[in-house]
């Protein structure tokens, strides 16, 4: 459920914010719990990354209001975010590839 505020676009309601906070808490609990479950070890890293991405997105879309704001803000932020992610992955790959065997 959302409320409107002329000149600022839609806003999420307080109830929505509390629901998001509860979901974030649950996802954090699942993340922490997952590292203690041996059966999940083969898929632990992708699981943690997906959960982390979900939390990241929830804060970005709801708390930071990007879901309700103009597309300009998404372009201004997400573009640099994607460049940062690409550079991040390339840097790990390049330095990792140059790593001497342990």
């Amino acid at each position, binding site marked *: 459920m959302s409320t409107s*505020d002329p*000149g*600022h676009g839609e*806003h*999420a309601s*307080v109830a929505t*914010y*509390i629901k*998001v*906070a509860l979901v*974030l*808490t649950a996802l*954090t609990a699942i*993340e*922490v719990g997952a*590292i203690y479950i041996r059966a999940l070890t083969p898929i*632990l*890293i992708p699981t*943690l*990354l997906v*959960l*982390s991405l979900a*939390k*990241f997105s929830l*804060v*970005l879309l*709801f*708390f*930071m*209001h990007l879901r309700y*704001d*103009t597309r*300009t*803000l998404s372009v*201004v*932020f997400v*573009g*640099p*975010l994607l*460049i*940062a*992610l*690409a*550079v*991040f992955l390339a*840097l*790990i790959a*390049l*330095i*990792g*590839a*140059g*790593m001497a065997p*342990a």
Partner: protein
Amino acid sequence: MTVAALTERVAARSAGPGAPPAAGIRSWLTTVDHKRIGILYGVAAFAFFLLGGLEALLLRLQLAQPNGHVLGAQTFNALFTMHGTTMIFLAVMPASNAFFNYLIPLLLGARDVAFPRLNALSFWIFLFGGLFLNAAWLVGAPPDAGWFGYANLTSTQFSPGLGVDFWMLGLQVLGVSSMLAGVNFIVTILNLRAPGMTLMRMPVFVWMALVVQFLSILAFPTITVAMIMLMFDRFFGTRFYDVAAGGDLHMWQHLFWIFGHPEVYILILPAMGIVSEVVPVFARKPLFGAPVVIYSGALIGFFGFGVWSHHMFAAGMGPVADAAFAVSSMLIAIPTGVKIFNWLATLWGGALRLTAAMHYALGFIALFTIGGLSGIMHASPPVDLQQTDSYFVVAHFHYVLIGGSLSGLLAGLYYWWPKITGRRLDERLGKLQFWLFFVGFNLTFFPQHYLGAIGMPRRIYTYAAEPGWAFWNLVSTVGAFVLALSFLLLLVVAVASLRAAATAGNDPWDGRTLEWRTSSPPPVENFAALPPVYGRDTFWREKHGDRHGRRPTPAPAPPPGPSHLPSPSRLPILVAVGLVVAAAGALVSAWIVVAGLGFAVLALFRFALEHHANLAHAHQDGVTGVDHRKLGMWAFLGSECMFFGTLIAVYLAYKGRSVVGPRPHEILNIPVTTVSTFDLLMSSLVMVLALAAVRRGDARQTRRWLTWTALLGLIFLGFQAFEFTSFVREGLTLQRNLFGSTFFVLTGFHGGHVTLGVVWLLTLAILSLRGRLAATDAVKVEVAGLYWHFVDIVWIAIFTLIYLIP
């Protein structure tokens, strides 16, 4: 007091519409007028350019003949280091900024930039940063490790003196200036366009400026991280570039060039934008394929982040990395070539007027193409292995930087000089100056292709007679002095012009864009009334119609009303002073650092609150419908993604490389960190409750939730302090191993961001307590909230990647 009366008082304090600009040195020190700031940037850039040029002449004197005795090796190293650093950071970039500052509001049909005081702050930080860097000469410790400062030459083991410290601190200060300017111009370009000016109707120069600002805010964070790591290694004994501790010297090179390659596009794109304005005017034809030129510029900017390791083909990255970066480097030549062909197509069939500005624009096209051709050779790793570290590379980058960037900037100087000064530069002398420049430049640098090809390495302070390099080195030196003479002539031409009467008129070139629609120089408010926009090249359409000769229906004059002009402020220069004193203090005493930072913080508080009660500043919505401050914060957060992304990447790249323990799995306390993570997540919840409260005007709830957010932030910091102290007790310190260095720096900087956030939130809470935070101030709480939530999502990433992933 009514809003109208308040606005009147504010307008009366500044140079109001139609009033002559304020005079005297104080007015220049406190100016926030973009035109004056542009002039300040231009004068400072030229002064530093002369200094960098003098350094170059000394280098050439030393190399004029074999076994030269003009300079010793150490001085030679310092001179090429400072020549490169000065020309890139203190001459070309600020010269581009001069044009951005002066022209962007005029080209957009705006009255000023989005954040005039921030604009002034950028300038003063740049100026004091440049002076600080050059103060190294005065204390006999000039930086001498190259403008690229490769590790571990820059370590205290191999560079024990103050030179590298000056360089490292100076560049970090300059980086702050670039970041602030970047955010400012992104918001200005997106939000302050005149009605009717869509993005695709903007002049190409403005588009190139927009791309450059994004490049700046995304590239500088990476070199900032590299410098922070170097600073910590030098001052605190961390291990980032310590090979014996598991560090990788490639790390510096990667981080430097992730910045360094976008940096070269920051240097060239403004010049390309200028040429895209000058050529159509003096060909009396619209720019051929303007949208394609725009897209090409944007593509160059974007792909510029994917080619950096072509500076490292000889560093031993391996065939896969070499091949990947070779392909990307060759691909980036395509949009560059597209621009060249579009300029040529613009010239084709045009009614050419060969003014001095046009000479430089044509010179740009020719010389940049030559530089580009040598560049595409470097894109091939096997060829580059022959050329790298030789004078062939020196020739390449001087062709693109002098033949390219500088030619473009000089074209802009000749083109816009009448607008800025109201006077014209002597065309005859200007063309003579161009030819002196052109001949001198080619004499200096063309032979260097040959010298490199026959084996002369770069960065050598002398050479023997046997290899046969002497003759062309002498020719190059003669060329350098001819080039210097051309700049002396430029000074003469400029001074003579300033002494003459102001007779240029509004539109001496029959221009195409909005700056020619106002007087020369423009009034303080730029335009008596905001100009109408009829399309791309809007002023041309207004004067001459479209290509069918159809003139647009004149837009109705806007209703008269007070235009709010920004008031002068002394706070920008004071903040800059504090910052540079802190940087200088790092070389002398921690107390001076504290004093400098304290002064800067106090000045920043006053800066932030200077217009807090000014109703004229309450609403700053722009064309995008977004408040300037909110848009600026989102742009800044984009750059923070690069900053933290780089720090986290360094941590992960170095993971498992510590030679000694303790190691992460032995020491990280996941249960305790889980609690602190939950705490930070909940702080984001109460932050949005604070925003909702301020929007509905509930002061009590606003204060409560702001205070709770700050308190939860303090609790998080308490957890972090507990973690840090327990780690130290268990033997993990900054200096212990790579894990200690990367962990403490990453989480420490995150903690620093949290601390800043807490201070910000408490300030807002106190304002609310004093009845000075109303619903009209909601955007200020929103902006603080965006920052706070971002700090939270960075922690989400850190918690998973550093703590949870084994």
